């Protein structure tokens, strides 16, 4: 089977996210970059599925030229083919992103046939638009479900599990299909030294797309005003226990 995974390069933030002086981007001067967490799991799931069923994994990203780093990371953990849809701007709006990806997927599929499965992350860690996978699936005319934390493939059907409060829902999608997956679907592997070396030689196909902007335009990014409250220190070590239980009593939680 042939699986496509769409990933996004995002900054890897620590305790605080800063914004550039013009307010248009995250200040990444002191940050590393990574594959958005849900999508790192999507790559892992794709590699596992072709390991089980045979086939190959293609990874596509829309991003700056530097996003090639995330494609090579995918190569180092077992993906086979790579497509970069380059952009000059910091980020594209969700409509524009989806249209470009749908076009680039169309290019690959018209040469090699339809992917059996296309995986997206449920939402990107940074912009969090919650829509690109759904828009691409609709443009391609394929069934799609988000929030997936488990997939089994049998007889041309992708059986997908979605976590809900206290259990999960099961969806059975005939392939070709699209899934938005979530972290927790698996625990992604680390690249091996052999994988790292091989990833340096991976060929990245560049597919430049010209697409109109969508209706949502960034004006500025800013940090929310935090209500800084003084922390009440209830004590040090186990001697603080009575003060903690007093607090629980005050909150009516000890009944």
């Amino acid at each position, binding site marked *: 089977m042939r699986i496509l995974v769409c990933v996004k390069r995002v900054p890897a933030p620590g305790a605080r996210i800063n914004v550039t002086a013009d307010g248009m981007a995250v200040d990444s001067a002191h940050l590393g970059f990574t594959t958005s967490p849900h999508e790192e799991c999507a790559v892992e799931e794709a590699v596992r599925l072709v390991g089980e069923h045979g086939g190959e994994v293609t990874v596509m990203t829309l991003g700056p030229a530097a996003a090639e780093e995330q494609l090579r990371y995918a190569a180092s953990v077992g993906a086979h083919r790579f497509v970069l849809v380059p952009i000059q701007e910091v980020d594209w709006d969700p409509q524009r992103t989806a249209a470009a990806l749908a076009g680039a997927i169309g290019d690959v599929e018209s040469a090699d046939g339809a992917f059996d499965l296309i995986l997206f992350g449920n939402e990107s860690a940074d912009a969090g638009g*919650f829509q690109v996978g759904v828009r691409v699936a609709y443009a391609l005319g394929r069934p799609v479900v988000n929030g997936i934390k488990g997939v089994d493939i049998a007889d041309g059907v992708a059986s997908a599990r979605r976590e809900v409060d206290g259990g999960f829902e099961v969806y059975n999608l005939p392939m070709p299909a699209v899934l938005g997956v979530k972290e927790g679907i698996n625990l992604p592997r680390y690249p091996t030294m052999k994988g790292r070396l091989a990833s340096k030689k991976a060929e990245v196909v560049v597919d430049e797309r010209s697409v109109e902007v969508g*209706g949502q335009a960034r004006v500025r990014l800013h940090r929310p005003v935090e209500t800084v409250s003084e922390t009440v220190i209830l004590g040090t070590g186990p001697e603080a226990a009575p003060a903690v239980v007093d607090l629980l009593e005050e909150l009516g939680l000890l009944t």
Partner: protein
Amino acid sequence: MSLLVICDHDRGKLAEASLEALAFGRSLATSAGLDMEAVVVGEGAESAAVDLAAHGASTVHVASHELLTDFGPEAWGETVTQLVRSSGAEVVLACGTDRGNEVVAHVAARLDQPFVANCRSVEPDAGDWTITRVQWGGSLLEDVSLTAEVVLVTVAHHAVEPSVAAAPAAGVVAAFRPDLDASLAHTVVADRVVLTRGVTLSTAPVVVGGGRGVGSAEAFGPLEELAGLLGGVVGCSRAVTNNGWRPHSDQVGQTGTRIAPDIYIASGISGAIQHWVGAMAAKNILAINTDSEANMVARAGHAVIGDLHQVIPAIIEEIRRRRG
């Protein structure tokens, strides 16, 4: 001219998150000069209509069809799309839950309109609308301008408090039968598996969280015991699930579960931004940490500086002593 709120329900009982969307929708409808209507989809939806009147819906569209037996993102999205086309709604709003964002994304794809997810404020205008939405799960805000024929938005979960309308609206029930293609059945829930009954991480009044400082899967025993004594559940940080100590379903944070308990007891958790955004809706936070400089300690209302392996057993003992 109307604003349509997509409401989620469980066999007729409105979801708490939808009450947030209705409260947000009422004020937006007022400022935009629109009439607020609601749509409920599927079996049992009609019994939600009375509550919807109390929350300010002038009309309650009850959508039914053989395919709408259970949740199905595509079937729901197609249904709402057809209702928007027939009712001429100018604004479509839902709460930014997994379901809400997914359904509105489907409406957006079908109408070929922008969709602004997880908004904190929406300012109507004769031209472009000005919207503030959350990025990074809530640790960053983005102001956007929106050019659209139909305004499609979700309101960030926990951003507004549910409230009833000052005076109930008419809540006139209007049956709506969408024209649905049989292929949409492929993405309707085929089966449900219940793993736990009772309190869950997202609804628990008390969450006892553990981070890297807990040290091992076995060391979560005392956290389980404390959670049990308080009628709560255990949560954890991303470091813990990455180490395989707890299942991902226990993870609190941007890529895990958003919690809103009466108290979150965060033990051995340093408080990285991804974890904080999942915990910040807690009404009270007690941090237990050996490091008085930890982010979680700085952000918590209360803190104990010390080793959780000593502090938590002491708390358990003190609760037992007081209860006799």
